[in-house]
């Protein structure tokens, strides 16, 4: 089922396109689960006031840049996809990172499939979802309406108190990542918290955290520091070194 040949409308021949749109979604830098939840709403047609649970009236969703979609936390190593082949001793496991290596689009497809209601319409709805790992898609010449997943407001995961002045954090990187959404440490921009798409992402070693390289590592969303945060880290390390040298 996964292979998408050069016939883009394969599988969509029996679809009645009246009242449907073809939507284009860019998965670049989107959190996989949240994007999948949004896609499942589109595929069910729940964004239209003419929604009917017995009809498959969802839009066709074309997702590009699926290989650049992100898991937060340690999920690339920790998340394990399991299935049983039916044969004795046939429990198979694969980590998210390994599955990404095999077929980056499959992760998103599985996630969306798990979020669709498990009924007779599920297969038809899944067929309306087309996921492509790169920025190319074969739906040339078709009018694709862009669909933007809702922007997130990051939670305040801070400590609840700010460091008193004169104290430097012992682990500046961890401190910064923790205090990112915190209102106390100046993380709240206009009280709305940071939006997920951070424009000023620093490239740590210049080894391009983009996952678009063949065999490159997917972006570990939480770990990258912005330019401001890097500066803070350097300053606090210098201050700490200065004080440490002065103590002994």
């Amino acid at each position: 089922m996964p292979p998408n040949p050069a016939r883009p409308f394969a599988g969509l021949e029996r679809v009645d396109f009246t009242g449907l749109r073809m939507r284009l979604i860019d998965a670049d830098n989107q959190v996989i689960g949240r994007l999948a939840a949004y896609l499942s709403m589109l595929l069910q047609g729940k964004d239209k006031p003419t929604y009917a649970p017995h009809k498959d009236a969802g839009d066709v969703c074309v997702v590009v840049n699926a290989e650049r979609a992100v898991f937060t936390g340690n999920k690339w190593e920790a998340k394990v996809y399991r299935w049983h082949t039916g044969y004795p001793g046939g429990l198979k496991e694969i980590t998210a990172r390994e599955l990404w290596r095999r077929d980056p689009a499959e992760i998103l497809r599985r996630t969306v499939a798990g979020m669709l209601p498990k009924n007779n319409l599920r297969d038809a709805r899944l067929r309306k979802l087309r996921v492509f790992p790169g920025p190319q898609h074969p739906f040339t010449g078709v009018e694709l309406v862009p669909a933007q997943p809702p922007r997130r407001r990051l939670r305040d995961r801070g400590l609840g108190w700010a460091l008193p002045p004169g104290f430097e954090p012992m682990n500046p990187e961890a401190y910064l990542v923790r205090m990112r959404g915190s209102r106390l440490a100046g993380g709240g921009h206009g009280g709305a918290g940071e939006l997920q798409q951070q424009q000023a992402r620093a490239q740590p070693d210049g080894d391009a955290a983009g996952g678009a390289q063949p065999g490159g590592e997917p972006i570990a969303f939480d770990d990258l520091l912005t330019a401001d945060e890097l500066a803070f880290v350097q300053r606090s390390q210098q201050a700490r070194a200065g004080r440490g040298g002065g103590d002994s």
Partner: protein
Amino acid sequence: MTRVKRGNVSRKRHKKVLTLTKGFRGAASLLFRTANQQNMKALRSAYTNRRKKKRDFRRLWITRVNAALRTYGFNYSEFLYILKNSKIVLNRKVLAQLAICDPDTFFKFVMSLK
């Protein structure tokens, strides 16, 4: 004892049930014993589902109104709060139909509440 023929008594009794089970699958539309059981089940389901129908439709209207509102950037929960406070008694059924059939009026209505 005088002889009693059973005649058409049972047949008339059974006919009543069998006419209710027309369209049932297999023996349930043909054989009285099976049909009787399925008929009882069907009537019981009809009873509960008449009550469920009211719930189901309300859910559908809510989903539809929610969808229509979100195309304008509002959401159902906040909208309902405003609606309740403004003492407007339009119900969800009306709002859902309005959103489908006359979206312009729906939009004006929503904006007038804001």
